[in-house]
């Protein structure tokens, strides 16, 4: 959404009366819902458009999704051109009082191209890599953006929301320290990933993504590229193949079998696997599986 549009929608939202009812927040991905719930507690209800083990890049626009947003007070989108479908859902909702939050606005972006982006680069995002929620430290800027919207609707709750966010981030920071120590022995370990989902995670946890299964973002593995990756994996430099659970694992599994490099298939969204009910469980699963693989153990299924 263009900034003037956001500004006017925020102005409309400001004019909407606080009602005492829970603030209804709809998010593009459940991870943002988890943060919104932590901030708002019982004063917020959350619902995600992407659910389960689905690809956030592609969503079909069902009328039922529009109706969810029709009744919402706040919509939190990923931005950076990842969830372009979100704007169509917002438009289809016809909700004039909706506050639209672009959670990427306060993020320090990585992989921002310094060249003209077009489709010859695959599905490259012109404003930076959009998978920023895979750094637990980004819960703070995401949360600040959500907090601003919630406090706009319920100004009287702003102090409580602020305290809730601070407490949530403090707990997540403490957990992040544990996760970092888990991966510290493998600092600098070279890893191949399926899609370019991991730069924020890699920076936080000290691993190095040296290649991707996709030759270009969004382009499926080609035989030539797989052959080159096989050669790379056989050098012994690369310690793991890291992939998002919603991608087809046939090619990475074949590479793992033929080269002996462990495949680590992990969820990248809250709710995308049993027991992954919040960010704590998500990063516990990712860091645990990756650490076991890098240590030579069997990654969790």
């Amino acid at each position: 959404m263009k900034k003037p549009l956001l500004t006017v929608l925020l102005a409309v939202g400001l004019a909407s009366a606080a009602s005492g009812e829970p603030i209804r927040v709809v998010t593009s991905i459940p991870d943002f819902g988890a943060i919104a719930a932590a901030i708002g507690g019982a004063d917020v209800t959350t619902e995600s458009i992407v659910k389960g083990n689905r690809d956030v890049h592609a969503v079909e626009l069902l009328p039922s999704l529009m109706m969810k947003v029709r009744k919402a007070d706040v919509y939190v989108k990923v931005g950076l051109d990842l969830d372009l479908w979100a704007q169509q859902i917002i438009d289809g909702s016809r909700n004039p009082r909706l506050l639209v939050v672009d959670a990427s606005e306060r993020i320090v972006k990585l992989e921002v191209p310094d060249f003209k982006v077009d489709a010859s680069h695959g599905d490259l995002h012109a404003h930076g890599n959009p998978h920023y929620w895979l750094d637990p430290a980004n819960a703070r800027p995401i949360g600040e953006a959500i907090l601003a919207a919630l406090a706009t609707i319920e100004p009287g709750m702003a102090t409580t929301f602020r305290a809730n966010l601070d407490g949530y981030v403090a707990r997540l920071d403490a957990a992040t320290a544990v996760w970092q120590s888990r991966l510290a022995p493998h600092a600098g370990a070279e890893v191949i990933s399926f899609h370019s989902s991991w730069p924020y995670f890699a920076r936080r946890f000290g691993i190095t993504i040296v290649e991707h299964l996709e030759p270009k973002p969004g382009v499926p593995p080609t035989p030539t590229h797989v052959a080159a990756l096989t050669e790379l994996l056989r050098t012994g430099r690369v310690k793991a193949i890291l992939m998002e659970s919603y991608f087809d694992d046939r090619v990475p599994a074949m590479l793992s079998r033929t080269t002996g490099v462990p495949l680590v298939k992990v969820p990248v969204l809250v709710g995308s696997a049993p027991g992954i009910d919040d960010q704590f469980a998500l990063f516990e699963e990712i860091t645990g599986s990756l650490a076991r693989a890098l240590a030579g153990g069997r990654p969790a299924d």
Partner: protein
Amino acid sequence: MKRTKVPWVTALLLTVVGAAAAQNVNPDISVIGDVRAFATDDASDPKEGRLQLDLKSVELALQGYLNPYARADVFLGYHDDSFELEEAYATILRGLPGGLQVKAGKYRVDFGKLNLLHPHAYSFLDTPLVHRELLGEEGLVDIGVNLNLQAPLGNTVLTVSGNVLKGDFAEGHHHEHAAEDTSSMLDSFGRGLDDLDTLEEEAVETDLGYSERLGLFVPTGDYAGFEVGLNALQGTLDLNTGRKVKLLGADAKYRWAPDKYRSLTVQGEWIRSDRDVEHAGAGEGGVERVRADGFYAFLDWRFAQRWNAGVIGERSEMAEEEGVSIERVGAFAGFQLMEETTTLRVLLRQSDGDELAEPVREAILQLAFSLGPHRAHWF
């Protein structure tokens, strides 16, 4: 549909694109091309049995917001060696009472689900017979104003829509003698294109028309649901003679996506046309009422990330000649090269009907490519 001259469209394009380039807030610009290779065993086709090539269409879309509450969409199309303004409309998206949306301009009318799509998006490649024959060569496209309400009914979603139309839907049929209309439909086999410029239009004065749609969407899961709809249109084909047309339609669509890579779409539509047709010897005034029915139904199974396959069956009677019908069945498959920006589709089909001496078989291969932003698919 009226054709526009190339210089006019070129000037418009240069103006719009130039103005957009000079601004900070540009509209989204995208281009979609549709290239085809085909062959037919139709004995009436002089190129029977030979491979033929065609650039079926190129579409230029300019889309963007006018303000926080409204957007505009313009589609320019190249078909049959000429340009045309396919659609140009503005939509008020939000802020009106009761969630009302208002659209004004030239647009594809929401008569059924399929008519809203541009034909290059069809998995089965070609406009269904019943649309071609009862809605017009390029579907039901007209200048008008649309009012659209959407409201939840429990877990379901009710859509009520109404259009006031200029009456250009009458141009979808070319008012020659019935025998020539027959040839216009039959001539399309094997080419996937009709050369409309060879047909001579009669000057007709139309009047406002009206269409209505009632749709009910029922979700059956987070990524599944079905919609049923009822459609109607009333209009004047020729103000001078008072000839009228009434269309009735019913449609259903079911979609189920069990996982990221697989989805099933089953969709069908039935349309009935009651149309006044001029015939010599048709009695007083030379006008008779012709009733025609038709339907299509297809199943499209996306069985892998970039692969889909399906079947389609269809039948239509001719809009202006009583009791003359044609049927066809087809099987289709599609493959996305790398990304969804480039798609290869193939269609094998057989047609039979009252005016065909023997069944006609065709094979069509399509390469569809798109440049620019790709918007998500509506249900």
